[in-house]
């Protein structure tokens, strides 16, 4: 059975304090790994798709990387507006469905 594990559950950062979130996965035949941002009371907002080990994607202060067993979301010099829950999801070769991790809630203090 596919498993997606995110760590840590919660991360409190000072503004400007860079850090990384982890998403480890155990799946058969990874087709894609997706990162989403979710603000309280809202639907997830798509951030990145990674398809193969070694791939990297960047958007403003966020950078996502992928290895054969895990993905990292690096937040560089975060600002309070980066506070959100970050979700990781995987798509496998078996079907079209996404399996989500439990998320990491990031709080950035000014």
């Amino acid at each position, binding site marked *: 059975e596919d498993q997606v594990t995110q760590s840590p559950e919660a991360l409190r950062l000072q503004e400007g304090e860079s850090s990384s979130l982890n998403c480890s996965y155990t799946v058969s035949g990874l*087709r*894609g790994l*997706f990162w*989403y941002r979710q603000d309280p*009371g*809202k*639907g*997830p*907002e*798509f951030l990145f*798709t990674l398809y193969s080990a070694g791939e990297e994607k960047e958007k403003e202060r966020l950078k996502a990387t992928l290895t054969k067993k895990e993905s990292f979301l690096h937040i560089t010099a975060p600002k309070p507006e980066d506070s959100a829950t970050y*979700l990781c*999801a995987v*798509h496998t070769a078996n079907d*079209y*469905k*996404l399996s*989500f*991790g*439990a*998320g990491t809630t990031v709080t950035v203090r000014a």
Partner: protein
Amino acid sequence: SAVISQKPSRDICQRGTSLTIQCQVDSQVTMMFWYRQQPGQSLTLIATANQGSEATYESGFVIDKFPISRPNLTFSTLTVSNMSPEDSSIYLCSVGDSSYEQYFGPGTRLTVT
């Protein structure tokens, strides 16, 4: 990416009643999904809404409890039937594209009393 809207955005319902949630997309899409997000939890897929045929339900979800309609390629509804407090959740629809990326609507926050 597609613009997705949901109605209602939130509702408070009495136990034993039913609520129908609408999902509207501004362009035709092949793949449409319904998720549940219980308080403090991640997303769980309820079903895939298939245009012109019955929805495909995930383990633990049944058609009698969560009937789904998909009359065309831009619209779907999810009904939460015979509600109990345990059904209090955020319900989300999403659409998928050929790259398997999914884009989510704003969600419907349901509270059952």
